[in-house]
């Protein structure tokens, strides 16, 4: 592999490429410099004549004002013959002249000028914090006699940044070339190495780089390192209020959601109750409900013109906006997460343990508190942490329901889009990261391990009734109430889209549909288009990443696993802000394009796809893939003909999740949309901001329909899985 000859050839070729690369780029640079110089000289010769009676001060000022990147200092008199009088446009230029007038360049410049020649300084000068090119040129009067010397200060900082960019490209090309040549010459399976390299590049550019930019920005003020932003954030009441606001909301939502989730999980797994299937469907429905939909119906029911608060109860000073309303809507939206987490845990607790306790004459309630609850504890904690994380990261609900109550995600959004304070916005969303990631890590690495220890294994078939009759009735009543409320909420959105003017005029109409779909046509089209483009990319990338992570050994594998998972743990607001920070400038300028939205979808939905791919791949005997490659298939062929078909269920579910989540995205995408590429969820937000609740309801209903269709299609495709029986190792 590393034979001497190969290494020599490698080094030799690389040297040649480095040489060529630098040669080409220095040529480009010098050509560019020459063009600027010529340009500058032209300007100099263009303005080297002045009427002897002019007000030189004014002349100097006029020129500096006329040319954006030029300041001029005029010395009246011929050097060597007259005393020179200095006319500078400003204090700074005068100071600059006085500081440098003794330097060699200035002496030469004046001498050249007195011989009627233009002189360009050899050394670098800095003026007003910027690099400048300095020209000395004679100034003539109307008789073409030299009457003085002009010193021209051309700001070339634009060039500097252009050269920096060129340098990045030059070095980048060499690195890319070196790596590609290294891989093709020295690695055993170049195709695989390219894939791994490609994955690293993708997560490097679209995960690491934006986050780095976001963090960097919070430590910079006026181009230098500074802790000012953080000081501001941590000492300003408004921001800290938002932080505690988020925490308080998170605590409330997590606690209530966990209680409600447990109510459902316990009733469904530990008691006999009719209609289990229906209850569990209802309890999972909100997971896939689009953003704003629940908030919208809460406003329609309890808002200032709410059906219940205003029309039925006649309350006039009740406000749903704020902590109470937020907790309500988040709980309705997030208790399914808690339910899903806990129902799995409860089901896998062997109910013979409870039987044993009952046999020992413990009462039912004692059994519940001493056996069931402790066994389920890790699952409960896990559920709580998951909801907490979700509540903190939630953006859509507080955006329209928070009123004067402050939460971090919305505050960050306002800082960025309302105030244009990107640094503060980035810092606030980073602040959000702290509790979110802590909770995520605890959940991931501590609780999820614990729950494996306590849970015994397969779901037990028979259930021991653990509750007495009155308790059971209470539980069932609560569940019925919650489900009725949930159905009411969804019904309200649908009703809202058919009503003329909610709160005032409840006549049936189809105008909302006509109008909203007319106005939302393009947004819907954009959203569907972008989601459709992102979906297969995310799906294939996810399965490819899963393949690489499960089956291949390579340096930095652990790092890649972590980086791929990162977008799952961080709030969308942070991703959105870091994307506009990183991609609104060279070398990657994609803000405002469809590309940035697609990439954002892909990166955000990748973790879920990778997880399901990894889980599925672990079930597949590796010798199936080995057999394929043994028969002559290269990595892409193995992937296409073996891995993808075998991962079909995981693949399809990851496709539909990506599609649905992209369609319903809001927290990151709201920063990335442009006039050209709009998003349906943002339009819903705009409609509800302008109190066009009818239109908003129509779009929300449309989204719900699209989501249900996508999931229905997925179910259909996954079920059609006849001849795919996995061999399990």
């Amino acid at each position, binding site marked *: 592999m590393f034979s001497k000859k190969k290494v020599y050839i490698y080094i030799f070729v690389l040297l040649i490429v480095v040489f060529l690369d630098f040669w080409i780029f220095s040529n480009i640079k010098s050509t560019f410099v020459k063009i600027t110089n010529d340009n500058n000289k032209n300007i100099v010769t263009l303005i080297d004549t002045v009427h002897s009676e002019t007000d030189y001060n004014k002349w100097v000022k006029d020129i500096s004002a006329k040319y954006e990147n030029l300041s001029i200092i005029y010395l009246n008199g011929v050097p060597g013959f007259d005393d020179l009088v200095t006319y500078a446009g400003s204090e700074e230029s005068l100071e600059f002249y006085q500081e440098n007038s003794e330097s060699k360049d200035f002496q030469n410049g004046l001498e050249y000028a007195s011989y009627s020649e233009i002189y360009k300084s050899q050394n670098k000068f800095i003026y007003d914090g910027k690099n400048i090119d300095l020209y000395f040129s004679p100034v003539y009067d109307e008789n073409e006699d030299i009457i003085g010397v002009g010193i021209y200060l051309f700001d070339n900082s634009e060039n500097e940044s252009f050269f920096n960019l060129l340098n990045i490209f030059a070095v980048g090309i060499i690195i890319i070339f070196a790596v590609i040549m290294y891989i093709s010459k020295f690695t*055993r399976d170049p195709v695989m190495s390219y894939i791994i390299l490609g994955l690293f590049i993708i997560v490097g550019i679209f995960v690491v780089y934006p986050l780095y930019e976001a963090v960097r920005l919070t430590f910079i003020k006026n181009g230098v390192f500074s802790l000012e932003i953080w000081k501001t954030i941590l000492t300003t009441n408004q921001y800290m209020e938002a932080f505690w606001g988020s925490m308080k909301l998170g605590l409330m939502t997590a606690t209530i959601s966990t209680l409600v989730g447990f109510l459902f999980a316990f009733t469904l797994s530990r008691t006999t109750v009719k209609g289990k299937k229906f209850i569990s469907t209802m309890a999972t429905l909100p997971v896939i409900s689009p953003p704003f939909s629940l908030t919208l119906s809460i406003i329609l029911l309890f808002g200032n013109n709410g059906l219940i608060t205003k029309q039925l109860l006649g309350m006039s000073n009740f406000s749903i906006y704020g902590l109470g309303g937020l907790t309500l809507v988040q709980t309705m939206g997030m208790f399914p997460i808690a339910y899903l987490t806990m129902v799995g845990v409860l089901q896998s607790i062997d109910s013979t343990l409870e039987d044993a306790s009952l046999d020992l004459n413990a009462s039912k309630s004692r059994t519940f508190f001493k056996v069931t609850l402790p066994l389920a504890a890790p699952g409960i904690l896990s559920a709580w942490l998951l909801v907490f994380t979700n509540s903190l990261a939630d953006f859509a609900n507080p955006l329209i329901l928070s009123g004067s109550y402050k939460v971090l995600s919305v505050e960050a959004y306002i800082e960025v889009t309302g105030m244009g304070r990107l640094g503060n916005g980035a810092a606030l969303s980073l602040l959000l990261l702290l509790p979110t990631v802590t909770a995520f890590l605890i959940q991931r690495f501590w609780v999820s391990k614990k729950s494996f220890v306590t849970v015994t294994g397969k779901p037990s078939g028979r259930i021991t009734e653990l509750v007495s009759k009155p308790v059971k009735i209470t539980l069932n009543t609560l569940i019925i109430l919650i489900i009725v409320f949930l159905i009411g909420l969804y019904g309200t959105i649908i009703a809202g889209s058919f009503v003329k003017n909610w709160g005032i005029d409840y006549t049936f109409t189809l105008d909302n549909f006509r109008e909203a779909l007319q106005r939302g046509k393009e947004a819907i089209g954009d959203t569907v288009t972008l989601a459709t483009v992102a979906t297969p990319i995310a799906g294939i990338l996810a399965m490819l990443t899963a393949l690489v992570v499960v089956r291949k050994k390579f340096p930095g594998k652990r790092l890649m696993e972590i980086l791929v998972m990162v977008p799952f743990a961080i709030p969308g607001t942070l991703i959105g802000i870091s994307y506009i920070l990183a991609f609104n400038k060279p070398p990657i300028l994609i803000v405002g394009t469809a590309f940035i939205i697609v990439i954002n979808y892909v990166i955000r939905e990748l973790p879920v796809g990778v997880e399901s791919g990894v889980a599925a791949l672990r079930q597949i005997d590796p*010798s*199936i893939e080995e057999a394929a490659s*043994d*028969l002559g*298939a290269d990595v892409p062929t193995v992937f296409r003909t073996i891995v993808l078909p075998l991962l079909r269920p995981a693949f399809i579910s990851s496709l539909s999740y990506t599609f649905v989540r992209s369609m319903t995205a809001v927290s990151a995408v709201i920063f990335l949309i442009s006039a050209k590429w709009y998003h349906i969820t943002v339009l819903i937000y705009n409609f509800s901001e302008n109190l066009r609740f009818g239109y908003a309801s129509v779009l929300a209903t449309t989204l719900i329909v699209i989501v249900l269709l996508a999931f229905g299609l997925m179910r259909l495709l996954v079920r059609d899985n006849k001849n795919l*029986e996995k061999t399990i190792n």
Partner: protein
Amino acid sequence: MIKTSASVKLENITKVFKDPAGKGEVTAVNNVNYDIKPGELITLLGPSGCGKTTTLRMIAGFEVPTGGKIIIGNEDVTQLPPNKRDTATVFQSYGLFPHMTVFENVAYGLKLRKVSKSEIEERVIKTLDMVGLKHLAHRSPSRLSGGQQQRVALARSIIVEPSVLLLDEPLSNLDALLREQMRVEIRRIQKSLGITAVYVTHDRVEAMSLSDRVVLMNAGKIIQTGTPSEIYESPDSKFVAGFIGKVAFLDAEVKEISDDFVTVKLQDKILKTHKFSSDVKTGEPAVIMCRPESMKVVEENKGHINGTVKTNVYLGNSVESFIDTEHGEILVQIDNPSQKKIYTEGAKVGIEIVPELSKVLRNN
């Protein structure tokens, strides 16, 4: 159908694994050298964990050796990935493609080689016929018996006419009877195609009955190679003798070594055994290696050692007599039992060692 089969050369092959759990290292294969001739079937035989699979996987290209070279034909393939090597593997777990029919499974390799559709059809049917599965071509592999799946795996490998066929315990998931059938079949197909084959097994009967040559491994090293009879009859060490067949070792002292014979002293008796290539030296302690068929049961005090019959196991064409002696329990095989005297259990007997069939080994 046959193209020229290739030789395989292993030069100083070493494979070190990082211990997945700790920071330690496992030397799975330790400096292995071996040449396999074209068209030959060799078995890698050895106890569990001795590095057989690892060696095979390095030949296939699934693992890269930590050191050494692998040469197939005239090409150094050490660094080539599996898809660039002209090898085909039959996996222990078969590794059939569950989403394809039997036909598609077998056709897979040919499709990759861009063979025309009609030729694929023809060759797949022919190969399936060869393994006796023509009638099942359009079934899904999950609805085949273990033996049938095994045949599909074999067909899938041989259809691409690899220069080397690699088999990793291909029969270990089958029951005894089927295993015997498949063994014969594999040998027949391998011979008729003249393909070079490496067969991994830890079953000595399988190794003996199949191979041209046996490579015996232990703890990552080759400890002896040779034809089945060489290995069986003249093992180099007690380990090989014990691994390759039932055997008893009797402590003895080497008295004299001549061109053809080795004279040893077993307690007060002198034996003259055939000399096989072995590094025993005069005056050193040694052992006599006694196979069940190289001993006879005789009257007490008539043989070389005495003992008591513990049990007799009737196997039809022979009886295995387990005899307690001061050297431990010794198994003697009595052929044609109907024509011989069988001592009852508990009887005091003597054991006679047939010198021509026995071998002296160094006691290590």
